[in-house]
């Protein structure tokens, strides 16, 4: 024993910090009257919709805009990554279940659209994009239930490996069934979302990704509203209880398996929706798009942003997509900086967990949980 870790604790450190609003930007935001808070929120939303025109802002704009990829496409990428992060946040952040195969649900959503709408599909149904959405979400939900039903009874840490296996099974199946899921060759000609301008040109074309971004933002807003209500319902409180102490929750009468299944299914729905959006914009889906590393990238986003907090998940999801896209076109050691994205976020995960485990925009309750645990620690 060389260090003395157990220095006497200051009154500030032990005083309960619940009840009063915390300091910083968020504390100040919370103390504002409700109409002002709504106005701030409305401004943020309007700002999000105006992002495609960021390049026109003097001085700041050109710094913000991506160089290696056109700005509208980069924004669209941000929108579906945010959607994925929001979905994974339900599983990891709200319910505290580690899902390493989240990309599996995203793949299920994208492949359902491809199978029902693409001309390459064995079904030959050629539905419109809009018509596939309910089916895609239903199948994603169903796959979440199928995966969750046997595995959620297991100890938490086995879940990680089983979910990872699930995503791998989907990828391997896509890779190895050239007649059904078409492997590397993929599905082409997936229809775009409907709608035309008065002059007959389609709203959702091939050239400009801006309308897709707006569609993405709209879907995100709907998802956020739905999840926010859910979080404050009986279901959300059950998730919180499970996350903090599963055994205690069970003893207090929370049906843990049922609510964990809920979290899984809802997360799967949002992931499937992300896949639907992606397939509708890209028009092409193949097995190479659903690598294991993608799941981990999304996890990095949730953890970095602040798991358990939707604002954090949105920020994290945006960053994991924006930073690599912004780096595209920059050469580091003879290679495009985009190549380093998984390396970068792997390191970021470790640093965040060590130095700021609550994330960039923490969930307040989660931060308290962490502080509680740190106080309980036995002196080493």
């Amino acid at each position, binding site marked *: 024993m060389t260090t003395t870790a157990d220095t006497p604790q200051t009154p500030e450190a032990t005083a309960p910090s619940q009840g009063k609003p915390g300091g910083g930007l968020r504390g100040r935001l919370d103390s504002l009257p409700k109409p002002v808070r709504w106005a701030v929120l409305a401004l943020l939303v309007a700002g999000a919709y105006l992002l495609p025109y960021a390049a026109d802002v003097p001085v700041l704009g050109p710094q913000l805009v991506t160089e290696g990829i056109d700005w509208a496409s980069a924004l669209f990428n941000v929108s579906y990554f945010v959607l994925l992060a929001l979905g994974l946040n339900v599983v990891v952040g709200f319910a505290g279940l580690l899902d390493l195969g989240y990309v599996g649900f995203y793949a299920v959503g994208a492949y359902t659209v491809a199978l029902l709408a693409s001309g390459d599909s064995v079904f030959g149904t050629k539905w419109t994009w809009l018509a596939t959405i309910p089916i895609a979400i239903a199948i994603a939900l169903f796959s979440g239930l199928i995966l969750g039903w046997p595995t959620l009874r297991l100890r938490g840490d086995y879940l990680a490996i089983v979910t990872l296996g699930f995503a791998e099974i989907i990828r391997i199946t896509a890779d190895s069934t050239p007649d059904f899921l078409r492997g590397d060759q993929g599905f082409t000609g997936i229809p775009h979302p409907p709608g035309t301008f008065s002059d007959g040109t389609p709203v959702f074309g091939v050239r400009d990704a801006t309308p897709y971004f707006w569609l993405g933002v709209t879907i995100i807003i709907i998802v956020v509203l739905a999840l926010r209500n859910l979080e404050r319902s009986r279901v959300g409180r059950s998730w919180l209880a499970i996350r903090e102490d599963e055994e205690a929750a069970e003893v207090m009468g929370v049906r843990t398996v049922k609510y964990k299944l809920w979290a899984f299914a809802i997360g799967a729905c949002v992931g499937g929706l992300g896949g639907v959006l992606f397939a509708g914009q890209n028009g092409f889906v193949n097995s190479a798009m659903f690598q294991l590393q993608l799941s981990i990238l999304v996890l990095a986003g949730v953890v970095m942003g602040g798991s358990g907090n939707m604002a954090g998940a949105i920020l994290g999801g945006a960053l994991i997509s924006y930073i690599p896209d912004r780096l595209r076109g920059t050469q580091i050691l003879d290679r495009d900086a985009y*190549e380093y994205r998984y390396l970068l976020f*792997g390191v970021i*995960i470790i640093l965040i967990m060590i130095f700021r485990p609550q994330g960039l925009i923490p969930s307040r309750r989660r931060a308290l949980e962490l502080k509680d645990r740190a106080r309980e620690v036995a002196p080493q």
Partner: protein
Amino acid sequence: MNFSNLFSQFGELTVTGLAQGAIIALFALGYTLVYGVLRLINFAHSEVFTVGAFTAVLTWGAFGLDQDSRTPGLGGFVGYLLIGLLVAAAASAATAVVIELVAYRPLRRRNAPPLAFLITAIGASIAISEFVGVLTHRNNKGVPRLLTQEPVFRIADGRVTNLQILIVVVALAMMIGLDFFINRTRLGRGIRAVSQNPDSAALMGVNKNRVISLVFLLGGLMAGVAAIMYLLKIGNVRYDNGLYLGVEAFSAAVLGGIGNLRGALLGGFVLGVFENYVSGLFGTQWHSVGAFVLLVVLLMFRPTGLLGESLGRARA
């Protein structure tokens, strides 16, 4: 489904499955040791393997061996094998200990929730594998052919090659050594004590942090040896091989009962052989699907694995 293929090659599939299983089992020991003591799935263990494998390939390269060089004689083979084993085991063990010090120890000091450990482990895993991937341009790296594989004898219709015998013998020797170390030595008793009850062990004067480092070191040694066996068997290596083999190794550890050393051995062999049967039946691309399905089915019906879990009662 190709039943005639499965039955006509049954012996062959079993023999190659056992060799593959021996590698998986060695690799699985690292997961099982760490889990037994820390109750943590050390996802980064797969990169411990990768680092060992690439260090060995680089070392052989420094001796002027590459995938096109001529196969050395028996003396040369033994020499290069020993060098490879030493280097890989040292590199893997060092990697494992460094991961523990850098990534996990700060979390332990803060009593972080289990999820934080798991997420950190994944971060470490992806960071190291991508680092290797960037360095190697994500290409397959060829391994020098140290040994000409030739059949030595046959069991039923299965040919047994000299390499397969070597792999199984080395793996068994390492495992017997480890088993002896855990069950019969003073340090091993420390490991068992910490895995049974960390706080009581600490009160009895066991240095917990040193035991944890030791466990990572042992797991790393085993992974390094597994890496050499893998290189000899497969003949090339890629930055993400460890990641995928690691998932299989972890499945093997769970299959046998995680935390149980002999369970990891059994789990490795069962998994290796089962995967090979699945390959024979459906085609090689499905072999890891077989592993996952086996894992899920087993966890549903026997969540503690075949031999039950616990490093503390490793004599079971």
